[in-house]
């Protein structure tokens, strides 16, 4: 017999600061394990590796801006998937929804050209992108509401369709066969997000920050946010108290899709200025982790997306300076996330010593 057993902690039994201490502790232990792995596998000085990591993320003004842009883009997609997740609607299709948004932005840049003033152009792009994302998001919701299809598979498959659609348009437009659409409006900069005070990414960061606060308020204080929470907790309860579950599902997925589309717009207009199959770069999937780790709290997502982007930027600097393969960054990130998720176990459960050994007869 084991000498202990696991008991679920009753809600609010643990003071809030205690939970955060556990989380902080787990990150520290994770960091220690990372250091150990680094020494054992590479023989490098772990302190040096960590300072290199910090240097890679914060080492210059440019790196801090790249870090902020990375956080903003990941956060934007995370905010987008959150209402759906809170409703227990597994929207695995953020990648495709954002990609469709990006495609819409790129199409505007291509075909409207410089016929509109840039501010109007940006609004048109944002609106079409959000619509494209919403359409891509609402299709699985309609099927779910009407025929109760499995939204996880449905949204996942929609990603591949979106990728194929983008490939198709790239083939149509780039007839040279290179599989690349050149940077759009490279001379006129029409449809490019303007830089503020020479900071190319400042506007992106501001937009996403505002969005985060709005989403926090929406989920926590609005009636619709409450409906989402109830549908997520129990569909039957929702029905019982008179919530139109279908309506909530469809409405929430439209919101989720709109925001994914906006992320696509920000990536195309604010960073890449073109569209490719890799424009979203897997953020649609990483966002799931960001949202879950933050327990669907938009403000905490600032922290979780920071963590992920910090490790990404930091360890890419480590692999550059210490001559390690880029997979090293994945290993380090994996270890840290393992510990963060593990810490949730100790927050939700407590380990009790068995009071008396039960004798087997």
């Amino acid at each position: 017999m084991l000498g202990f057993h696991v008991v679920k902690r009753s809600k609010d039994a643990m003071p809030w600061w205690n939970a955060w201490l556990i989380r902080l502790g787990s990150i520290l232990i994770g960091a220690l394990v990372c250091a150990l792995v680094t020494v054992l596998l590479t023989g490098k000085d772990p302190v040096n590796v960590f300072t290199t990591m910090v240097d890679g993320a914060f080492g210059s003004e440019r790196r801090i801006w790249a870090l902020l842009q990375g956080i903003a883009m990941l956060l934007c997609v995370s905010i987008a998937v959150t209402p759906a997740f809170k409703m227990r609607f597994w929207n695995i299709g953020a990648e495709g929804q954002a990609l469709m948004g990006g495609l819409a932005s790129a199409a505007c840049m291509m075909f409207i050209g410089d016929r509109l003033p840039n501010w109007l152009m940006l609004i048109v792009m944002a609106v079409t992108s959000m619509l494209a994302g919403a359409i891509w998001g609402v299709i699985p919701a309609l099927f779910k509401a009407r025929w109760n299809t499995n939204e996880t598979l449905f949204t996942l498959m929609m990603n591949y369709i979106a990728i194929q659609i983008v490939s198709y348009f790239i083939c149509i437009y780039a007839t040279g066969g290179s599989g690349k659409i050149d940077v759009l409006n490279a001379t006129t900069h029409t449809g490019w997000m303007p830089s503020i005070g020479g900071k190319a990414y400042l506007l992106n960061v501001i937009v996403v920050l505002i969005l985060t606060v709005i989403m926090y308020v929406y989920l926590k204080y609005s009636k619709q946010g409450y409906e989402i929470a109830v549908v997520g907790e129990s569909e039957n309860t929702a029905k019982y108290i008179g919530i139109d579950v279908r309506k909530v599902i469809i409405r929430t997925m439209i919101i989720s899709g709109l925001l994914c589309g906006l992320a696509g717009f920000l990536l195309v207009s604010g960073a890449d200025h073109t569209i490719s199959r890799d424009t979203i770069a897997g953020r649609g999937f990483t966002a799931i982790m960001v949202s879950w780790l933050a327990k669907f709290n938009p403000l905490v997502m600032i922290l979780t997306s920071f963590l992920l982007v910090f490790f990404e930027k930091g360890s890419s600097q480590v692999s550059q300076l210490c001559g390690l393969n880029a997979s090293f960054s994945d290993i380090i990130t994996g270890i840290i996330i393992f510990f963060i998720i593990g810490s949730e176990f100790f927050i939700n459960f407590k380990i009790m010593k068995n009071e008396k050994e039960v004798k087997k007869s």
Partner: protein
Amino acid sequence: MKRILAVVLALVMVLGLAACTKTPAKTGTNDAALKVGLICLHDENSTYDKNFIDAFKEACEKAGLVEGESYFITTNIPEGAECKEAALDFVDQGCTLVFADSFGHEPYLIEAAKECPDVQFCHATGTKAHTENLANFHDAFASIYEGRYLAGVAAGLKLNEMIEAGDIKADAAKIGYIGAYPYAEVKSGYTSFFLGARSVCESATMEVTFTNSWYDETLEKEGAQKLVADGCVLISQHADSYGAPTACEEAGVPNVSYNGSTEAQCPDTFIVSSRINWEPYFTLCINAVKDGKDIPTDYIGTIDTGSVVLTDLGKNAPAKGTADKLAEVKAGLIDGSIKVFDTANFTVTRFNDTYNQYKKDSIKTDKDGKVTEYLADVDDAGDYIGETNVIIDGIFVESGSDMRSAPYFDLDIDGITFAK
């Protein structure tokens, strides 16, 4: 309260970490020692990037540079704004010479070049340097079609051996080719390979399939399997994973590789591989920056400069006498007696949907289908319309330092078909 604490904690972490970076600020970097950086699309698991990384290290170490101190390699940089960030980050670290290795990096490297006129930016496989008119932005490529042609000769000899041994009939000498994109660089590659094979094995034909990706191990492997099922008796590829060679080894079909030897992975089927050796170009650029000299706007390495090389022949697969024949053809390519894209050697007669569809208006052929004039899209202005005649003295000039370094040969010649 909890929420507020979370935010405060986040801020403390960000600011705290930001604060401690200020202390180990860069010191001692004010000496004017040369620093160079290389931006790679993937890492060394891609044969394409490995080829760059190895050559870069060789060139840097020759020049006495040290990794992590005076030369830097950053991998897995996507073809987006990240490339510009990576390039400018190299500049922040004191680099005065920055390379990028992937086609899609070019527009972002150009943006970086515009911001930093004192730093030299060199881009492999790009098409825009000759029209951008930036003093500090340069394109480079190599006449890899010569290497492909040589590898094709080795393939043709193998086909001849199979015909003589009675393994296949002469009219079944079909080559399979896995290409990345239906793009000029790839088309020039498989066409020269095919012309090399046909120069020694007259009955050779070729079937091409595209993966629409530069690196997709599964698609490349499946492509090879599909071609073998279609009756191809020899496979080559222009894509960057080990997918095709491994599929060949499993099926026992001889393979002509690219980017480097696959002898270790495929000992029974590896014939030979052609590759671009970027070391001469890297060395040229490093020396130019050291000596304050100009880097050519468009640089084309050749067999003669050591930029186009063949690996050692495989131990088991190549036909007898391959080494001697290759030496002979190589000498011919160097002295100019053999021209790969001599219009006398190929015909273009198909103009339907799949073949040469967009080129009807820009090509002129004689009654046999031999090309007499062809307007290629050399300027790459985004219009995809040809504007420069590239048939000079009966030769299709595949690339030229007075035109551009990247290939623009994009004809579909007779004898090559596409897989369905």
